[in-house]
């Protein structure tokens, strides 16, 4: 499992500014949910797929991997609509979500995390007046992307260790060793952040000027 899905190939989509890509993604999301016409939504899905494969030169495999986790939900959604409404509404809802998931996949696969984080830092900058430190927000996002797969992997390892000793399925007992590991990880992580200077925020002006950290 990985959340850092950047696929390093050279393409115009990769080179496009992260802010633009996020803005288009947001616009697409809003547009898809306002439009009720199936042909337009299907058109959008096809367009996103073309951008992904042709313009961004992403391997089909990477896209499939991104969409795979949402298949069951899409299936449930479709069945729900078939029962409650009709097939047309169901297809519309599923196509919409699929187009959006795919578009989000294109953005994450073509944009480095640092670039995405920079956009978020820029967006939260006005919150600075309330004492929010944009660099901190950015760090939290980057660390989430880093540690979610790591913790998932540790959980998997504990499950295997317990299975090797005869336990079956998901058990509550798994949570205790996992919690211990996560707490230990967090303690070292806090020290590592200190040791690597994360407690020394440099103002954006000084950062540009290349001033040493205080």
């Amino acid at each position, binding site marked *: 499992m990985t959340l850092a899905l950047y696929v390093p190939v050279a393409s115009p989509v990769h080179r496009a500014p992260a802010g633009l890509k996020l803005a288009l993604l947001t616009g697409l999301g809003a547009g898809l949910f306002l439009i009720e016409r199936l042909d337009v939504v299907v058109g959008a899905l096809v367009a996103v797929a073309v951008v992904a494969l042709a313009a961004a030169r992403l391997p089909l495999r990477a896209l499939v991997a991104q969409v795979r986790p949402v298949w069951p939900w899409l299936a449930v959604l479709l069945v729900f609509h078939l029962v409650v409404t009709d097939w047309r509404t169901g297809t519309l809802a599923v196509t919409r979500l699929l187009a959006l998931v795919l578009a989000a996949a294109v953005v994450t696969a073509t944009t480095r995390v640092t670039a995405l984080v920079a956009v978020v830092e820029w967006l939260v900058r006005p919150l600075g007046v309330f004492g929010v430190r944009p660099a901190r927000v950015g760090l939290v996002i980057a660390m989430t992307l880093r540690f979610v797969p790591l913790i998932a992997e540790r959980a998997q390892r504990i499950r295997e260790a317990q299975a090797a000793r005869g336990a079956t399925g998901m058990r509550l007992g798994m949570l205790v060793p996992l919690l211990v590991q996560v707490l230990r990880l967090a303690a070292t992580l806090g020290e590592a952040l200190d040791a690597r200077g994360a407690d020394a925020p440099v103002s954006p002006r*000084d950062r540009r000027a290349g001033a040493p950290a205080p």
Partner: protein
Amino acid sequence: MRWGRRGAEVTAAADLPRTALELQNVSHAYGDRPVLHDVTLTLGESRVGVVGANGSGKSTFARLLNGLVVPSAGTVLVDGLDTRTQLREVRRRVGFVFQDPDAQIVHPTVAEDVEFGLTNLGVPADERARRVEDMLARYGLAGHHDHPAHLLSGGQKQLLAIAGVLVMQPQRVVFDEPTTLLDLANTRRVARVIDELEQHVVVVTHHLDLLTGFDRVLVFEDGRVAADGAPAETLRWYVDRLS
């Protein structure tokens, strides 16, 4: 200008010559549990090794050296800088590598993680890029620029963690069991990396082979320095004591 003035102080501290790590009557307790007892040491050597049983206080000692732990009593001086009052300067001077690389890699991909410390230092973007590439090439990670960090092998992760510290160009580096989670080949690789460092290093380890070429080895026992001297004698003393 607040930042500028403090920045100037740090720059001045960075120019200080490497003299010694000094512990003066240092004791430390976690809560009411004493861990180090009145340790006094002057370490001027470029290669210092630390060995000892589990719980003997090695990691606590290592953490004292860059101010991750401030002693309950006594003073720790790094090239004359007091870890209690000049913490920022000390942290910039002394890099720290932990046992578990997973806990010190904070960014999802390789190059971004190496860049992290430089961003914290306020290094401009073009210089950051140059220094990151240099580090990745030196540690055999150049082909893994945008690779997710958690897909690296254990050895590569530890090299990444080391690169993330060295890119900040500290004067000294403290390693706390850098090879404990590694296989033999990667242990040798990390040993060679440490060996080639221009920096002064302190290495805490259970891999006694790592310390053969060192200038000085300390043996910790129940929070005290039980033996101190050239590696050959000290390590022999330590091994004999176990048998």
